[in-house]
């Protein structure tokens, strides 16, 4: 069965979000911004003023550093964009979502269903995953314009806050829903049923690693 494909605004209505199901393929229109540990630390820990009107301009936070350069004339050259793993940002996301009204958190690998239930659902937010984690060129084609880059002097190009106008940017996969379900946990639960068979006959290492998991259903992240 082919997944369903939809277009979605980066300032989506609650109805548009409620409509989304796990595994739907989404293409985005509107403004999105990149923010990861550098932006979170600067905005939340150092209390710097966020240089955008959020969420009215954009409710879409992309965990991304683009492959981009600033030309000598000040214009931007952005080739490919790809997400970075989101679970590392769980520390800052509750405060970020509350402060900025972000409705779409876009990244790699998703968060846990606990994260979704604790602070995504109450804020009406969902998680979108990039595809394959390498469709950088396809996503690059969805960039209509790089509107601005903020804090590049303070954070460097990779951690800076890039503001991107997108036109049918995608594909992205819906990885959480308004019940707090997690697409990746659903898939892992199916896969783990097969693992005992695959591991059959193998032996645990004679020297154990202290303090790590032997539970094959463990999500490992978080």
């Amino acid at each position, binding site marked *: 069965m082919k997944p369903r494909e939809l277009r979605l605004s980066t300032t989506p209505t609650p109805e548009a979000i409620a409509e989304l199901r796990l595994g739907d393929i989404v293409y985005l229109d509107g403004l999105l911004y990149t923010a990861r540990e550098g932006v979170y630390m600067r905005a939340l820990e150092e209390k710097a003023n966020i240089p955008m009107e959020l969420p009215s301009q954009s409710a879409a936070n992309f965990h991304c550093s683009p492959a981009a350069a600033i030309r000598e004339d000040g214009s931007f050259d952005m080739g490919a964009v790809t997400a970075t793993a989101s679970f590392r940002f769980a520390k800052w996301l509750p405060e970020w979502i509350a402060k900025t009204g972000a409705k779409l958190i876009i990244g790699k690998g998703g968060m846990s269903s606990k994260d979704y239930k604790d602070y995504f659902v109450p804020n009406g937010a969902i998680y979108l995953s990039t595809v394959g984690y390498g469709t950088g060129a396809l996503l690059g084609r969805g960039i209509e314009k790089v509107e601005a880059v903020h804090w590049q002097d303070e954070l460097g190009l990779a951690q800076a806050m890039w503001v991107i106008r997108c036109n049918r940017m995608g594909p992205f996969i819906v990885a959480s829903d308004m019940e707090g379900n997690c697409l990746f946990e659903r898939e892992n639960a199916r*896969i783990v049923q097969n693992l005992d068979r695959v591991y059959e006959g*193998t032996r645990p290492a004679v020297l154990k690693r202290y303090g790590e998991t032997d539970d094959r259903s463990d999500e490992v992240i978080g």
Partner: protein
Amino acid sequence: MIPIDLIQKTAETLMDKAAIEIPDDYLSGLKSAAATEDGDLSSFVLQAMLENYQAAKEDRRAMCGDTGTPRWYVKMGNDTQIEGGPIALEAALRRATAKATNGVPLRPNRVHPLWRTDHNNNVGIGAPEIEYGYEPGGEWIDLITVHKGGLFGTDYRMLFPSDGIQGIKRFYLDSLVAFGKRGLACQPAIIGIGLGGCKDTCMVLGKRAACLRVVGDRNPDPRIAALEDEFKELGNSIGMGAMGFVGKNMVIDCNIEVGYCHTGGMQMSVHAFCLSSRRAVARVHADGRVEYRTDPDWFTDYQRRDTVEWHPDMAAAE
């Protein structure tokens, strides 16, 4: 004498090719995988990847926004001389890395580990890595750039002889499943396994097995080659596909390299290259010819030699 300008110019072209052009061996491996994949979501992902490679080539933009940590493997024939010597060579490779970072553009990934200083050019302390190899004859230099992703899919463990092949299998599965969940390893990928050496060389062997050998290549030791086949199949029987979705393709190929180790140990490393498998190679000859290719051809009989002395006819005799 190989002109230094030619080396730098070739290196810049290689940076561009590695970031943009998917190597043919990996592409055909992925196409075969896509043809067999029956998981709805993982199948969608593989088709999107195939479209992405096409888009990258058409637009001349990087395949992936995370362009990894560019590095260099340099190999030369024993008679090779480089204009300006090894110092000039390293300067040329650092310049090419910095220039291509802004030119392609690549993501300026390299930062100081503590102070997070970013020079916005992928050059810094120890970056890019430049590793060397030598071959017995000839006057040529092979420039190989690999832009491997940096964070997930790699692990090391000190195993012991009593762990045996079953212990090796166990750690292989542990690594694939742990990093395969949610697709953190950006699978399906070429998996490299290093066995033996010391801890550092074990990591080096595994990384080179993943990044410097092509899909379909087999270790010349027939028993290791059989293990490579077995491990490829084992990885693909986990039931996990692209992005950690239900599927049957984790491993496009499995390459194993070995090195002699301490008699009490059996070091093991696992490395997953990624869905973009970025590598590009050129041979620069003394007469100015430049030949581009995608097979690094790193592991020659000479690189895998196990004797004290080396004679040119030894490879032929085996």
